[in-house]
């Protein structure tokens, strides 16, 4: 049985798709057969981040409407043969999704995959609710600022009340907090919420902290998930998060403001 993991946030632009791509790739790199589904029908992005935009022929909605079968729509990643993408449709909207259709596709995927990553659209409406409905686990992507934290809190409420597990009173969806765009320097200066602040407000276990990094933007533009960039701090932080997702205990990195370099001190730069 595959584990269904939704990557969600409520707020837009916090790094859901970047995270879906990185976590999905990370799981595949560790040998797990993984598929990432783009639920953002109408605003397809995952294919770009994964660098497979030119290979999209059929999409999620085509499969849902039986215009294509799953094998035709799934795109195998060029870097890792255990990694697959199911792209969203760019020409349709969220109303194209139906609960039965989504369930059918998920159960078919569950037969052959170990992990199904659902990349949720922003918001709390139908698209986001579809993405999280069948989830076993949820990665809640949050930026260290108040509006993102509040939206994450809202989506946690929806996970508790509107997921299949909530409706059937099964074991609740396992929640993970992933703090992205974290800048220790700015936290020290009091411009950004700290890890402790966010943990205190959301009260769910921390999966990882991804530092704010130029590598992320570069990776997005090049269509190469940042986790493949082993020299980047963000890539390493995502690897740590994947390890924790698989139950390993790894210490947090990149959460302290860096010491000023010798030259900087010499030049008196503040």
């Amino acid at each position, binding site marked *: 049985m595959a584990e269904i993991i939704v990557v969600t946030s409520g707020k837009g632009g916090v790094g859901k798709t970047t995270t879906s791509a990185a976590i999905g790739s990370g799981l595949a790199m560790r040998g797990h057969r993984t598929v990432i589904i783009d639920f953002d029908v109408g605003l397809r992005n995952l294919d770009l981040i994964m660098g497979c935009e030119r290979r999209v022929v059929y999409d999620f909605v085509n499969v849902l409407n039986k215009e294509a079968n799953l094998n035709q729509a799934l795109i195998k990643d060029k870097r890792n043969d255990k990694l697959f993408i199911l792209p969203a449709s760019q020409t349709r909207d969220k109303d194209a999704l139906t609960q039965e259709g989504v369930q059918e596709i998920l159960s078919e995927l569950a037969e052959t995959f170990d992990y199904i990553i659902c990349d949720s659209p922003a918001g709390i409406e139908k698209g986001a609710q579809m993405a999280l409905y069948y989830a076993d686990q949820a990665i809640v992507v949050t930026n260290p600022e108040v509006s993102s934290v509040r939206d994450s*809190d809202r989506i*946690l*409420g929806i996970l*508790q009340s509107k997921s299949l597990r909530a409706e059937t009173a099964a074991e609740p969806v396992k929640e993970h907090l992933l703090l992205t765009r974290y800048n220790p320097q700015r936290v020290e200066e009091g411009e950004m919420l700290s890890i402790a602040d966010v943990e205190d*407000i959301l*009260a769910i276990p921390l999966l990882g902290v991804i530092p704010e990094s130029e590598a992320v933007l570069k990776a997005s533009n090049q269509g190469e998930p940042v986790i493949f960039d082993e020299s980047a701090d963000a890539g390493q932080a995502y690897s740590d998060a994947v390890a924790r997702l698989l139950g390993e205990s790894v210490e947090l990195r990149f959460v302290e403001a860096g010491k000023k370099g010798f030259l900087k001190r010499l030049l008196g730069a503040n």
Partner: protein
Amino acid sequence: MSEICLQLKGSVITTFILELYHYSTSEFTQQLKDKINQAPAFFEQSPVVISLEKLENDPLETDLTELVSICRQYKLQPMAFRCEDARFIPLIAKTGLVHLPVNASRASIKEEVDLSGSADIQTPPVQNSVSKNSVQADQRDSPELRKNKIISRPVRSGQQVYAEGADLIILSQVSEGAEVLADGNIHVYGTLRGRALAGVKGDTSARVFCKRLEAELISIAGHFMLSDSLREKVWEQSAQVFLDQQTLQVEAL
């Protein structure tokens, strides 16, 4: 064809009990006046049940009609007398008010237990103490035990939890943007960041307790306070909020 134009429903009404120990016109007038002057608006047009159970006077020497008119003079609304002594009954009839037997509440409890068909009916000593309490207390809460609603997970932004006719107990936090309501008290064994409204049906004795107060709003029986005002009293520590003479009191615990 005819639509239903009335319905008979059971209900519990909150009233004041005016308990009389001894009665003389001047003494009663003075003391009632003093009492009401402490919070004139609070008592205005309040329904009142006058209890004669502890009255030491001889029934035949007590002018109940005068008593009622003094009450009305101070803007109370006497609606019934409660007593055991049968000698009062014709006097009460003269005032036009209702006579309530003392053991009414006990009888109703018994009846409820019987109706529910439950196997073990409460033992008499327990019943006695229940009804005694209900007589002595100021009758704000009903003699039946209040039920509780227990929530063990965080109440998140956008969620609303209501404990109807009950106390609400939350073993976790209440997030900003969440709303918790109860007809009775609210206990939050975590940080209270959202809105908490206790006594929403008007129970002025309801209270809010929390382990850490950072609430957006706290309301008791419609009297509310926003975070700005709360901040000036007790903030980021355990606290209780209750109503005292129509003013919200915030106290650290």
